[in-house]
């Protein structure tokens, strides 16, 4: 216990913190953006929630929505209309009042296709938001050449840069096109001179689509400021988790005069997010930002609930190395760390149980199969790999951080939904399935299979363990191939793999954030799996407001996933962190969200490092 002697000659951050009320926070990495409408990372989230407050706020223990900028809200019976009553004393850090117009302005900014926000789709639940966001669409069609022989009322689509256009031809008796009715205006079209129209019989018909985007007013996006303090949001579908969704930074307001001043409405990379420029409405103000060194926020005296805020400041340190972070923690430089190196978990668990915390985290660690190439084009092989995976052994002997074996895809308990455990360990059955497959193909054994993962000690250990299990139970040779992060990402996007590591962290506490990605053609599917029933079930769930029925749809989705097995779930994440016992009001939450206004620092009598 040599390092118990630690503590430098000068008092450490943590020792001073009680008096100064400064929380020292290990941020993990430097956030790319501090702009709520552009941010896309956990580290950005951790800073932004100090600076900006949304319509609702989170209960520090349960994350249930509690009043934020909105004092109260009414929900219509069909669950489609939300009316928020904003508190009159909510202020921006420069003293301006926070109004309903500020929120509308913010939604308009993030949904503006020219801003190109990565998280704008979080707002697609708003009525017509998607239509506005997806930009260039076919507004009208001009007929250049009527052609002949076309059938009346036949449906046509348009080829070109965009997708989704659907029109219906109207023709005269000789089959010449008289007009084209737009059924679906599609999205992302660019201007053309002329496009030839094809249908079974017709020839020579050409049209010119007129392309344009809808203005905010034309699109009639369901966000209206009734007056300064009343905001009405209309949704596409009843969304039971809508209020929880509002706690994602993409729904946060930005201060319109500041955005205008820096011309940041549809521009990226402007300096409005620097200290001195940043105007927020949260419990803290951005006071210092040294890139790769420290981000400091100080208590905001203009915050409506400043009384509750106990901390005077928070200092965020983007320490990337887990070992350095642990050393920082041990020397009293940090109150809490972002991670713990997997090699150190055993030691810390045994020797310092009072500072190491294992907290459930809404995420799934899994592998993707590529269904477009053999052998994983055959469901038997995919099932066999799943059945030959001893998930219990992985979490007990390899990861050892308290992870939970994943026997379904959605982490159990997500928004009240707990799917049945369907991915079982049954090596006998796995063997039989593989044998069946080999016999049918006339093979002696499976060909060598490549498993790709992004370079990391942790991923390597899991991959090696699985390599052994599959060799044992299925007699298959697995070759491990690690890749640098960005190379790995582009490999996944191109679906250039047989078997690849993946992870998914929920954006909000509802099964939809997990199951959504396996829809046909979803940007995160990347397996080539497509199932009509599955897509249909998700649509049904989206329109359903009765939770019981929604869960039934989700359950069937999970069942389909386990039967077709486009993926191999391994474990559910756990957030392992070191936290000083002096930090109070910090509770384990599923999304690792911790509203700072409830955090306090208090002396404890424990023997610290």
């Amino acid at each position, binding site marked *: 216990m040599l390092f118990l002697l630690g503590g430098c000659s*000068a008092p450490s951050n943590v020792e001073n913190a009680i008096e100064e009320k400064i929380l020292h926070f290990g941020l993990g990495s430097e956030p790319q953006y501090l702009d709520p409408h552009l941010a*896309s990372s956990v580290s950005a989230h951790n800073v932004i929630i100090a600076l900006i407050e949304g319509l609702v706020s989170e209960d520090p223990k349960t994350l249930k929505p509690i009043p934020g900028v909105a004092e109260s809200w009414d929900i219509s019976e069909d669950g489609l209309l939300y009316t928020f009553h904003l508190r009159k004393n909510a202020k921006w850090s420069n003293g301006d009042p926070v109004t309903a117009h500020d929120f509308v302005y913010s939604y308009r900014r993030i949904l503006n296709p020219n801003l190109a926000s*990565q998280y704008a789709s979080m707002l697609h639940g708003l009525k017509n938001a998607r239509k506005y966001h997806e930009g260039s669409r076919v507004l009208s069609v001009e007929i250049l050449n009527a052609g002949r022989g076309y059938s009346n009322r036949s449906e046509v689509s348009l080829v070109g840069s965009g997708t989704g256009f659907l029109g219906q031809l109207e023709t005269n008796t000789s089959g010449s096109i008289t007009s084209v009715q737009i059924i679906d205006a599609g*999205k992302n079209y660019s201007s053309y001179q002329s496009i030839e129209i094809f249908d079974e019989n017709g020839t020579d018909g050409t049209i010119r689509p007129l392309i344009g985007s809808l203005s905010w007013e034309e699109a009639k996006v369901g966000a209206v400021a009734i007056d300064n303090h009343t905001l009405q949001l209309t949704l596409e579908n009843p969304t039971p988790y809508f209020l929880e969704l509002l706690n994602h930074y993409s729904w946060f307001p930005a201060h319109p005069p500041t955005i205008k001043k820096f011309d940041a409405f549809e521009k990226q990379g402007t300096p409005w997010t620097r200290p001195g420029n940043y105007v927020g409405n949260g419990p803290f103000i951005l006071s210092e930002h040294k*890139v*790769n060194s420290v981000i400091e926020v100080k208590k905001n005296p203009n915050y409506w609930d400043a009384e509750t805020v106990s901390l005077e400041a928070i200092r965020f340190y983007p320490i990337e190395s887990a070992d350095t972070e642990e050393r920082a923690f041990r*020397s009293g430089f940090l109150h809490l760390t972002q991670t713990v190196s997997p090699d150190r978990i055993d030691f810390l668990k045994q020797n310092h149980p009072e500072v190491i915390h294992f907290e459930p985290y809404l995420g799934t660690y899994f592998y993707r199969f590529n269904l477009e190439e053999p052998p994983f084009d055959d469901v038997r092989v995919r099932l066999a790999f799943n059945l030959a995976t001893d998930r219990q052994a992985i979490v007990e002997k390899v990861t050892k951080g308290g992870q939970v074996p994943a026997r379904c895809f959605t982490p159990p308990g997500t928004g009240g939904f707990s799917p049945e455990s369907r991915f079982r360990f049954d090596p006998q059955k796995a063997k039989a399935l593989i044998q069946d497959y080999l016999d049918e193909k006339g093979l002696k054994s499976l060909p060598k299979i490549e498993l790709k993962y992004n370079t990391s000690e942790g991923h390597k250990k899991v991959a090696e363990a699985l390599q052994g299990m599959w060799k044992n139970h299925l007699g298959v040779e697995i070759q491990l191939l690690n890749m640098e992060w*960005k190379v790995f*990402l582009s490999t996944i996007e191109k679906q250039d793999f047989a078997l690849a590591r993946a*992870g998914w962290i929920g954006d909000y506490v509802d099964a939809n954030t997990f199951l959504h990605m396996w829809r046909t053609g979803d940007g995160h599917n990347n397996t080539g799996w497509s199932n009509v029933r599955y897509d249909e079930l998700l649509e049904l769930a989206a329109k359903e407001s009765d939770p019981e029925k929604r869960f039934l749809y989700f359950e069937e989705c999970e069942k389909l996933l386990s039967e077709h097995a486009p993926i191999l779930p391994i474990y559910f994440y756990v957030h392992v962190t070191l936290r000083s016992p002096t930090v109070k009001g910090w509770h384990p939450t599923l999304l690792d969200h911790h509203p700072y206004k409830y955090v306090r620092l208090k002396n404890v009598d424990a023997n610290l490092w």
Partner: protein
Amino acid sequence: MVKFIVVRILQAIPTLFVIATLTFFMTRLAPGGPFDSEKNIPAEIKEKLEAHFGLEKPLHEQYFLYLGNLLQGDLGPSFKYMGWEVSELIAKAFPVSAQLGLFSLLIALVLGLPAGVVAALRKNSAYDYCLMTTAMLGICLPTFVMGPLLILLFSSWLGWLPPLGWYSFADMILPSLTLGLFYGAYIARLTRAGMLETLNQDYIRTARAKGASPIRVVLRHAIKGGLLPVVTFLGPAFAGLISGSFIIESIFFIPGLGRFFVTAAFNRDYTMVLGTVLFYACLIIILNLVVDLIQASLDPKSREP
């Protein structure tokens, strides 16, 4: 002399041009881009995102634009640290790395030079063996082992020095020592070799024969020639030291140029990679020139064209 300097500076221009070109195309050829992330975004949004930074243009057009901006001294915005200019970030990070580098070099010289001279004068003695074995160890122990070892000793066990950060003078000691010991070990071995060679020269024998005291022989006559290999080594080593070390800066959480450079490569932060590479190239060119000038003053033979 002036002509020599002017010629060297003119020679640097094509060198920098080649470096800029190679780096530009190499970073672009690497798979993945600055806006790739785990969160896949629709192609059309990615296009617009890239358009914000001119990445949608044909590659050759981007290249000429970059060169054009470069001539005006504009290194462009960073793609990873939104809202910050590359030149601004380098201007903030370089002084940190330079400070660390200079301090390390000082330690290296203070430890390495005397050790090398003593070892050479007491060749094959116990002093020599002791010093050179230590130096060999110093060279063999990589900084990512030495750093944590020093932290363990001086911070965790003795509690004398902070284990990380870059806020006060005390923070500078451990990282500088880690780097300094490594370079000091090299310098010690090079000094010993250089001194041994010089001490065998005729003019040293002459000086001794004329009755010069041993100290005078070493300080007045031998050291000038003996240090030549050290000076040659110091040029690039100095450039390496002051341009930052990723490993040391990560271990000790120092906001220096090394961390910016390496993370920029991982993030495909094109402008940041190019900016730091060019900055580094300029440093090396300047320092090599300085080394040549110093060498010329130490060794009359190299003054001939």
